[in-house]
């Protein structure tokens, strides 16, 4: 407006900072402060509708707890410092350690809740400044196996079809996804499909809110996915229901698959699912003209994660369900920018657009573009590997907007490891549990305080718009990296805006070259791949051929393997973990919303009615849950939604689920087994 008075009620259309659905919303700004969220009906993704988290996402922005000044730990205590002092120290320490110990002595951890531009600039800084590939993002502990598995099966590690496309399907198979809670507005699409009369089958060990919505719910034993999928495929082939033409023309490896599944006719002992039920599942999926698979972390967060994903790939190709509307294999990506963080090359083996560091021609291309020489060819350490390597060989770490002390597996191990570092930088908006272990804490900006983009789970590049200024001396995160690069004397970081960073990325990334800032600025934006400015974008992948080098999809014969740690006499319960609709990750943002805190202020564990009865446990009393790695004391919630012998706990609380979880890794994707570990349960008897 032309008047000089501060604006009242300015609407700033932007993207929700929480899950990977990428809902549009308006931040309402009055007198320079965010005062509310208003629906943005124009967004084709969510049509103005929001979940409890989206509705309240403005509430933490002006929290008095926000970090407003750089902090430096001196004599064990944090003291406020100037930006110059803090960044000088970071630059000096990283340089010293790198010069002395080489590129493998540094670790860079990028958060999936930060915009693409910031993910890109941070990995560029690690690679250009320190010639290290020790850079990773937290997709590693959610959908790393999707990237790995779908790349192997289809040649591209991303979701094949958009969320809304389930409305074009004839059968929806939801596997290991509690979309209603974890991705509510994608869950809405499933609910809409059901209203339309499209059958929905949910496969989940737990009677989740999503299972409650389904026409059919299949309970199975936790983490026995491969056995169950193989058995479905056995019956599809046995009953001659597979799509021979598709298999013949568009795939390879079918014989390998066929041979493997031959021994999976009856899997009831392993999965708990009667053969007749498996046959029914197989027939329903195979009979549908167009069937879509939606999956999530129930599939990925296991030591068999990549194989689980490839098994779903097998199933879809077996029935020709790839490459058109209403079909596909769709991982629901967890965080707002988990797709983007991977796309931007915040990954230990690829640059932006999944261009491999091991290929000399790729390195040459990036060296030319970035004006450097000697980019590393080696596969860097992954997120949790970096934690294990703290002290040796990693001496210094830069953690950007992550809270490993709560969100990574085996919290006690994480804390012990972080203590071994010579130097730790944490850049965040709140003083998180992880900040305790830092030497320097840098105050960054929230989603409302910077421009940029988040790429959602459907590969749509959604615009994030600055609504207010960061608090105090806090800075927009991309700017912090620009300043640090300057301190390090690096060239190629002279960015004046996130849009300039996007263009720097676009220039070297063929799959996103056509996604110009102007196109992204429009409602609905564009889905990558989008190679040219005229290209319409690609909502549906693998249409005529797969994205693999030979254009074919690949079947893999995969044998079932049990999880790394299974229940035994000493730890007789199986613990599954997951998410609640009312919280996001480690709650640093959501717990500062009044209503979200009211809904779930404290950790709880779901326990079966029979088990509770046997142990004398009552509703809402604190109980002790122990694993080989640690213990926690959540409230007990007694329910038949979980089977006897199985517990369910959300991952959001400090000293909660991750005190118990297992660090055992999926060999292919380095995914820790967050979804499955063995625990013991005890009633707490007060000493009187």
């Amino acid at each position, binding site marked *: 407006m032309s008047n000089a008075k501060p604006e009242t009620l300015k609407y700033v259309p932007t993207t929700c900072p929480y899950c990977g659905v990428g809902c549009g919303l308006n931040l309402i700004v009055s007198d320079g402060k965010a005062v509310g969220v208003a629906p943005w*009906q*124009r967004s084709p993704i969510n049509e103005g509708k*929001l979940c409890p988290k989206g*509705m309240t996402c403005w509430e933490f922005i002006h929290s008095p707890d926000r970090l407003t000044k750089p902090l430096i730990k001196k004599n064990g205590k944090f003291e406020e410092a100037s930006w110059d002092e803090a960044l000088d120290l970071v630059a000096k320490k990283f340089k010293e350690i790198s010069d002395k110990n080489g590129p493998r002595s540094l670790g860079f951890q990028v958060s999936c809740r930060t915009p693409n531009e910031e993910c890109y600039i941070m990995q560029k800084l690690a690679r250009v400044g320190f010639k290290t590939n020790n850079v990773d993002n937290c997709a590693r502990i959610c959908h790393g196996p999707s990237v790995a598995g779908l790349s192997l099966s289809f040649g591209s590690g991303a979701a094949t079809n958009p969320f809304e496309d389930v409305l074009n399907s004839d059968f929806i198979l939801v596997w290991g996804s509690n979309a*209603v809670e974890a991705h509510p507005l994608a869950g809405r699409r499933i609910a809409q499909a059901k209203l339309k009369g499209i059958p929905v089958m949910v496969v989940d060990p737990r009677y989740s809110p999503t299972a409650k919505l389904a026409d059919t719910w299949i309970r199975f034993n936790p983490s026995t996915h491969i056995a169950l999928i193989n058995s479905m495929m056995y019956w599809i082939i046995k009953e001659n229901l597979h799509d021979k033409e598709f298999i013949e023309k568009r795939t390879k490896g079918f014989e390998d698959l066929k041979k493997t599944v031959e021994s999976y006719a009856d899997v009831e002992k392993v999965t708990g699912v009667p053969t007749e039920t498996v046959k029914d599942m197989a027939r329903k999926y195979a009979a549908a003209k167009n069937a879509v698979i939606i999956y999530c972390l129930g599939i990925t967060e296991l030591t068999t994660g990549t194989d689980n994903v490839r098994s779903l790939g097998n199933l879809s190709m077996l029935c020709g369900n790839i490459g058109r509307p209403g079909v596909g294999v769709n991982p629901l990506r967890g965080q707002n920018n988990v797709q983007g963080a991977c796309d931007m090359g915040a990954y230990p083996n690829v640059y932006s657009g999944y261009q491999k560091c091991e290929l000399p021609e790729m390195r040459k291309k990036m060296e030319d573009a970035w004006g450097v020489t000697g980019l590393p060819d080696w596969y860097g350490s992954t997120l949790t590997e970096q934690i294990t390597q703290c002290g040796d060989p990693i001496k210094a770490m830069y953690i950007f907007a992550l809270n490993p002390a709560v969100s990574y597996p085996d919290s006690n191990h994480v804390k012990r490891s972080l203590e071994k570092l010579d130097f730790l930088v944490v850049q965040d908006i709140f003083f998180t549990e992880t900040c305790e272990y830092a030497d320097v804490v840098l105050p960054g900006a929230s989603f409302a305080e910077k421009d940029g983009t988040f790429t959602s789970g459907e590969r749509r590049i959604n615009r994030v718009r600055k609504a207010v200024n960061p608090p105090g001396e806090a800075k927009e995160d991309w700017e912090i990296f620009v300043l640090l690069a300057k301190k390090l004397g690096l060239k190629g970081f002279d960015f004046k805006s996130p849009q300039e960073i996007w263009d720097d990325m676009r220039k070297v990334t063929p799959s996103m070259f056509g996604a110009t800032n102007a196109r992204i600025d429009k409602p609905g934006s564009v889905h990558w791949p989008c190679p040219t400015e005229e290209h319409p974008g690609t909502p549906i992948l693998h249409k005529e051929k797969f994205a693999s080098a030979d254009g074919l999809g690949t079947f893999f014969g995969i044998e079932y393997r049990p999880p790394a740690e299974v229940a035994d006499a000493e730890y007789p319960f199986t613990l599954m973990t997951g998410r609640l609709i009312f919280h996001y990750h480690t709650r640093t943002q959501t717990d500062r919303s009044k*209503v979200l805190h*009211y809904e779930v202020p404290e950790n*709880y564990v779901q326990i079966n009615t029979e088990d509770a009865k046997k142990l004398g446990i009552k509703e809402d009393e604190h109980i002790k849950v122990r694993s080989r790695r640690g213990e926690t004391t959540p409230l007990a919630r007694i329910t038949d939604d979980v089977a006897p012998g199985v517990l369910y706990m959300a991952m959001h609380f400090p000293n909660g689920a991750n005190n118990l979880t297992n660090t055992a890794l999926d060999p292919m994707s380095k995914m820790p087994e967050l979804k499955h570990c063995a625990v013991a349960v005890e009633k707490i008897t007060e000493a009187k």
Partner: protein
Amino acid sequence: MSKKGDMYYAWTSDAELAKKAECGGAVSGLLKYALEKKIVDGVFAVTRGQDIYDAVPVFITDPTDIDKTAGSLHCGTLLMSKLVKKYLDGAGTQKIAMTVKGCDMMGLYELAKRQQVNLDNIIMIGVNCGGTVSPVTARKMITEKFGVDPDSVHKEEIDKGQFIIEYEGGHKGISIDELEEQGYGRRSNCRRCKLKVTRQADLACGNWGVIGDKAGKATFVEVCSAKGADLFDKAVKDGVIKTEAPNPKGLEIRAKVENAMYKLSDKWRKKDFEGLGEGRERLKKIVKETSRCIKCYACIENCPICYCVECSTKKPYLVKPGEVPPNFMFHLIRFAHIADSCVNCGQCQELCAMDIPNALFMHAQQVELEKMFGHVPGVDMSLPLLALVEERDERDRLAATGSDQIFDIFK
């Protein structure tokens, strides 16, 4: 001096403004005049956001910015009333002129009854509304039914029972009836709405009934209150607004359009309410549909009736916190507190994350209650018979009894 019931053809004398506005720009002219003469401190209206499908509320204090609000956007499904309460201090400290659709106006009355907005500080310039179309539905409809790229459309309107678009290279209209039979068209609450001409606002403006040489060049203005008459007369006296007497034939046409709209609304009411069934069957349907609820609270946040500081849906003994879907009590509380005053604005349905037809359920109950008790919400300051209480006083009174239950059902 004009008085309630007087009618005019009116247009602005500001040629620049008239160019940007529709139908002679009388509404824009009046808003600009009210700001210029400091009759109000601000104007609260709607402007175009990212494109013609994106309607955005805007608070304007500089008269030269009024042209931004000129023209109509039928894809604006906003409810302005609750925003006045939430973000403009309920017009408690400043005087505001607002353009209002029927639902905006009704919402303001309901909030005023509950002392959440101060109507004395608000000039309501009503605009005829035949209904609004959700932006995503509109774009889908234009693509699929009109065969036109929605990005090439520069103007849309609802006129003479048709949804009409103007786009690069032509214009096209399709009957609303036909569109709605096929699942496109207006929001379902708009289809049932019977407040098409806002006669309970201060002025009721629109293009219905403007015929002859003034067609498209003047706005039909009906004076509805002394406040409205005062603003209008001053603007006319100062030469900002020009008028002439409406064509008598135009009056007939205006009435005809209004009646046709009512008939259509009756048709939809019959269809929608009958579709719900009765008694136990209706209850069963409501229980089933609401079982998708994910407790986003959008229905409560956006409802122009809800205003309580302590919402009963957040009493742990009534609705257990943290549970999805919540117990049916969550919805019963909403029905009990709102149904007699529901103005069918549709926000609780349009913004429901799980597409629960909340507005239909609430509206169906309101219509039954109106039959029983004769109370019509949203059109004046008369109090409802059942649910209205002064929240603070009532909470204090109940607290003194040692319970906050009117009838302690837990005893």
